[in-house]
């Protein structure tokens, strides 16, 4: 089965044992995102202190890809500066839009490179992005998200 390349061990491990799942309150920003094509949902709480991601926590229901991707993301950005976190988001988006042509920069994306295979399945990209878009939205709400190189809040 080609499923092996899509459902890598790392992805399924995160699905089985998700990190930072369970909302931590209070938070500076709380967002709720839904994937309208399948009904999957994620709630995400974000707290920023002195320009650093102090806490990302989440809860949700969804497929293995969406749950694992949210888990990987939440662990990846924890403790990063908002600028670094923005870069990570941009890099992940780029991989997701690549139709399988890039695997992504592991030094930046860490475990998230495991999701590169998802970009070959257009119907699943939204699954992989669900938690990421929630995180980006929370960052934007707090004025933290910065586009690549501009240094300006988007």
């Amino acid at each position, binding site marked *: *089965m080609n499923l092996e390349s899509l459902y890598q061990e790392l992805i*399924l491990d995160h699905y089985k044992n998700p990190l930072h799942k369970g909302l931590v309150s209070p938070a500076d920003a709380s967002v709720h995102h839904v994937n309208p094509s*399948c*009904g999957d949902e994620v709630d995400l709480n974000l707290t920023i202190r002195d320009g650093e991601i102090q806490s990302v926590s989440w809860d949700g*229901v*969804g497929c293995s*890809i969406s749950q694992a991707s949210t888990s990987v993301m939440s662990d990846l950005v924890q403790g990063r500066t908002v600028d670094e976190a923005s870069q990570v988001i941009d890099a992940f988006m780029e991989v997701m839009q690549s139709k399988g042509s890039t695997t992504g920069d592991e030094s930046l994306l860490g475990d998230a490179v495991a999701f590169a295979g998802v970009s070959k399945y257009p119907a*699943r990209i939204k*699954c992989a992005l669900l938690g990421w878009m929630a995180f980006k939205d929370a960052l934007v709400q707090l004025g933290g998200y910065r586009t690549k190189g501009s240094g300006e809040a988007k």
Partner: protein
Amino acid sequence: MPLDVARIKKDFPILARTVRNEHPLVYLDSAATSQKPVAVMKAESDFYSQHNAAVHRGAHLLAEEATDAYEGAREAVARFIGAKSDEVIFTKSATESLNLLAYSWGNAPSNSRFHLAPGDVIVLSEAEHHANLIPWQELARRSGAILRWFGVDDEGRIDLSNIDSIIDSRTKIVAITHQSNVTGAITPLTSIVAAARSHNALIVLDACQSAPHFAIDVKELEVDFLAFSGHKMVGPTGIGILWGREELLAEMPPFLFGGSMVTAVTMEGASYAAPPKRFEAGVPNMAQAVGLHAAIDYLNAVGMGQIHEHEVALTEYALSGLSSIAGVGIVGPTEIKDRGGVLSFTVEGIHPHDVGQGLDDLGIAVRTGHHCAWPLMKRMGVVATTRASLYLYNEKSDVDALLLGIEKVQSFFGSKGIGR
């Protein structure tokens, strides 16, 4: 006589192709859209290559031929559902058909029987597809009318126990599905129609999941309006049907305005043509109507009765197969009585999207998600399901592939510690 499915399959070229990993296609998503036989594609193509012209206009031969072909399609639809030709309106989709009603009635003046006053009631069911839900929500919002709905039981069957308090003297419209696109449950129409009739309410039937699968006669159904789409009945996309009783259509205000739907126009105003033209503004989807005619001819040649029998037998086979796989739960009636060939299910511990992905890997095309019926999903206690849906070109081997596929998906994820 059983259907010669092997022969039917040959009429659908797409069913001969391979998909992921060179697997032959096992198409089990006809409730979303059906595949098309060569005859339908050829009819559409012939229209463009031989007869293309704007219908109902033009003094030339092509315009005449195009008009004949288009009106011929209308007659074929009328015969297909036991209606009169002028009662058949072509739209772009069943969704548009239902919106046409909701907007037309929203435009009705206060002395019209279609006018809704604040406090009037629109009755729906919890099993509705969004297309037969949201247009009515919006009409209620615009008019001040109130929505009421039938609930469903744990198998997704419409619960009629409180019918007398749902359909009452304030009820103006009852808009209901004929067969659920999620559970396959067929609506018990008789008592709903009787209750609606006794209160003089209009009855709208969403026949998207029924008209392609068994013979329908609007006189027998005793409803007032019927909506369905061409693409789910081996016809082209871009063509929907709205049938309405002629005396009702005659009183209805138009929805879309423009060319073709008028009798006279000045700079100040216009007067409107009789139905069906009143409801067909603009150059219609002609080639698609012609393709639909070919689709109806195709279905009739096979025989709607035989298609139905074939699907009943296949659905029974699928129900028993699905029930025998540990961890698989059917979302919908588990008995064949009053249900069609739409089979929603869950696989314990594995999200429907992951099930669908695993099946796709084996060449099996199913639908996953909420099937545009969020309230029903909520009632059934699921966020999403995997849905296999059957049609005349499916056979036991397709169902076997599905059943084996589910087991393979279970063992793939099971080996990773997911699911059973």
